[in-house]
């Protein structure tokens, strides 16, 4: 493995820390609001999975593209979305990314290359392939990064998409965030092999297993994959082993796993803590700076909440708009 991540400037690595904090605070807030019944609908939190989102987007250029999932807040922030407009969307407000029409599962920012979260498991995978096809046909040099979960790799769309991307050598990096469970189905019951990354072999696509809770490793492997994809050598499949700390969505009794397992991941594999420790050890940051970053991320999320709460509801006149272009 290269040491691409380690070679990045202080500014860059600190920003990664900031992003991870943003993601965590964002989702912790959302969790709180759901518990209080202040938000409508449902949501899927990625607390514990911050490193795979931030690490995956680390080597991307602004005009590279991503497709995301139902568990997409992290991808969104990592790809540069503004937490205030995200939060406003969750509040269903007109200032939200989707003017309140999409909600948590459909945040998109097409102009910034975020082609959208997706409520259909596996539904976004072919879209990423299509986006990569545009890049190839128009010779744009852009890469599409396609996020999905372990559960999604059992959908037909996963299979068809990887095959298509491979035979056309499209610039797409497939990122499977294996958080050990679907909604409740343990990956070990649903997949009869050890590493999902090995599924790349069915398509002649190189597969890489990564510790998804290690930002540096994630970023390094991604950087290589993005380079390969951009250079025209075709897609890569990356499996980031990780864990979601929270339930699948609201009201999940989590009967399908043990509290011990949860505790182990929280205490021993916290991606933020690990990265912060590395920054401190390497002398890239001081304790005070770390605290400042944390605090400023928290402030930003609090401002996002304020922004959302003070935003208008969409007007009824807009209900029929935006169906057709």
């Amino acid at each position, binding site marked *: 493995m290269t040491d691409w991540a380690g070679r990045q400037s202080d500014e860059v690595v600190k920003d990664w820390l900031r992003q991870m904090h943003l993601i965590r605070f964002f989702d912790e807030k959302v969790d709180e609001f759901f518990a209080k019944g202040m938000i*409508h*609908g*449902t949501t899927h939190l990625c607390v514990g999975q911050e490193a795979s989102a931030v690490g995956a987007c680390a080597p991307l250029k602004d005009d590279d593209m991503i497709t995301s999932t139902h568990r997409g807040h992290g991808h969104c922030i990592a790809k540069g979305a503004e937490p205030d407009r995200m939060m406003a*969307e969750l509040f*269903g*407000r007109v200032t939200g990314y*989707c003017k*309140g*029409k*999409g*909600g948590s*599962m*459909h945040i998109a920012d097409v102009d910034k290359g975020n082609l959208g979260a*997706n*409520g*259909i*498991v*596996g*539904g976004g995978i072919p879209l990423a392939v299509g986006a990569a096809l545009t890049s190839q046909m128009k010779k744009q040099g852009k890469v599409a990064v396609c996020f999905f979960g372990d*559960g*999604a790799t*059992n*959908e*037909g769309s996963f299979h068809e998409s990887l095959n298509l991307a491979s035979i056309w050598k499209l610039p797409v990096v497939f990122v499977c965030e294996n958080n050990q469970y*679907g*909604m*409740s*189905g343990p990956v070990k*019951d*649903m*997949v009869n092999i050890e590493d999902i990354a090995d599924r790349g072999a069915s398509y002649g696509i190189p597969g890489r297993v990564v510790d998804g809770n290690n930002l540096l490793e994630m970023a390094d492997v991604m950087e290589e994959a993005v380079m390969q994809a951009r250079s025209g050598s075709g897609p890569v499949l990356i499996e980031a082993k990780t864990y979601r700390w929270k339930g699948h969505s609201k009201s*999940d*009794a989590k*009967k*399908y796993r043990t509290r011990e397992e949860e505790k182990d991941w929280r205490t021993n594999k916290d991606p933020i803590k690990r990265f912060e420790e590395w920054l401190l050890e390497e002398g890239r940051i001081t304790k005070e700076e770390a605290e400042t970053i944390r605090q400023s991320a928290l402030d930003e999320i609090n401002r996002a909440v304020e922004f959302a709460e003070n935003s208008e*509801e*969409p007007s*009824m006149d*807009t*209900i*029929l708009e935006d*169906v057709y272009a």
Partner: protein
Amino acid sequence: MREITYAEAVREGLSQRMREDSDVFVLGEDIGVYGGAFGVTRGMIEEFGPERIRNTPISEAAITGAAVGAALTGMKPVLELQFSDFITIAMDQLVNQAAKVRYMYGGKGHVPMVVRTPSGSGTGAAAQHSQSLEAWVAHIPGLKVVQPSTAYDAKGLLKAAMEDPNPVIFYEHKVLYKSKSDVPEEEYTIPLGKADVKKEGTDVTIIATAIMVHKALEAAEELEKRGISVEVVDPRTLVPLDEETIIASVSKTGRVIIVHEAVKRGGFGGEIAGVIAESEAFDYLDAPIRRLGALPIPVPYNPVLEKAMIPQVEDIIKAVEETMRGA
């Protein structure tokens, strides 16, 4: 009689059949310890074990097709599709396989399976988790289509569906899961193809399905106060459709409003309007046939917009009053 919820009625009906008939089993995503996305199968894996309450991978095409194959060879699978929007991924197996094998094979083989699936909006789940797509399957010969509106109907119709030798798509409305009604503990069957007159009346007929039955009943109550006697007919099954009851009611009242939650354009309301318009009831019509359905938009997330998308009690009242004025 005992009151239980719609979700409990479904669970009880399922469990009772499973105790009687070892060929019946349930498969679906997260239906095991998790109890299903809406808790319908909660506790069932504890009673029936993981062989008969089969947690599946997220692969709607394969699990639907596996149910078809199992049904064709002697089992009686009940498939839970977690949200009815995901039927989009299973359409080939339902439409090109389940619905057609018997006919294609010249009458050999049959496919006794039930697809239970939650549909409808009202939970803030947005465009990909809130649709009402029953019109699609109702268009397909070989499938039967059920839409219970009460806990009582759900239990009785589910038994009929599970005993039917054909593929039945059984739509459960998410928002109704918690609604309660009197439900006998013992088993009973409500035959497929028998509409229920949920309320008798003389001035106007409202034909309503699923959650719209309740809105229609609420509207009827208000209208009664305003001196308009409303008959509310719940078809309960779209296929087979009880045309007789519908036509008789409309012939009696001379006015009709059809209400469903699905998008109006291309919804099953058109079929019902068509059936009425070409029946003998046509001669009794004193006003145009009115249809109420959702606006032609994907389901919006914002709760105010979400609600505004589909017919509400006031919309029904307004439509009835307009119809009474012959407009």
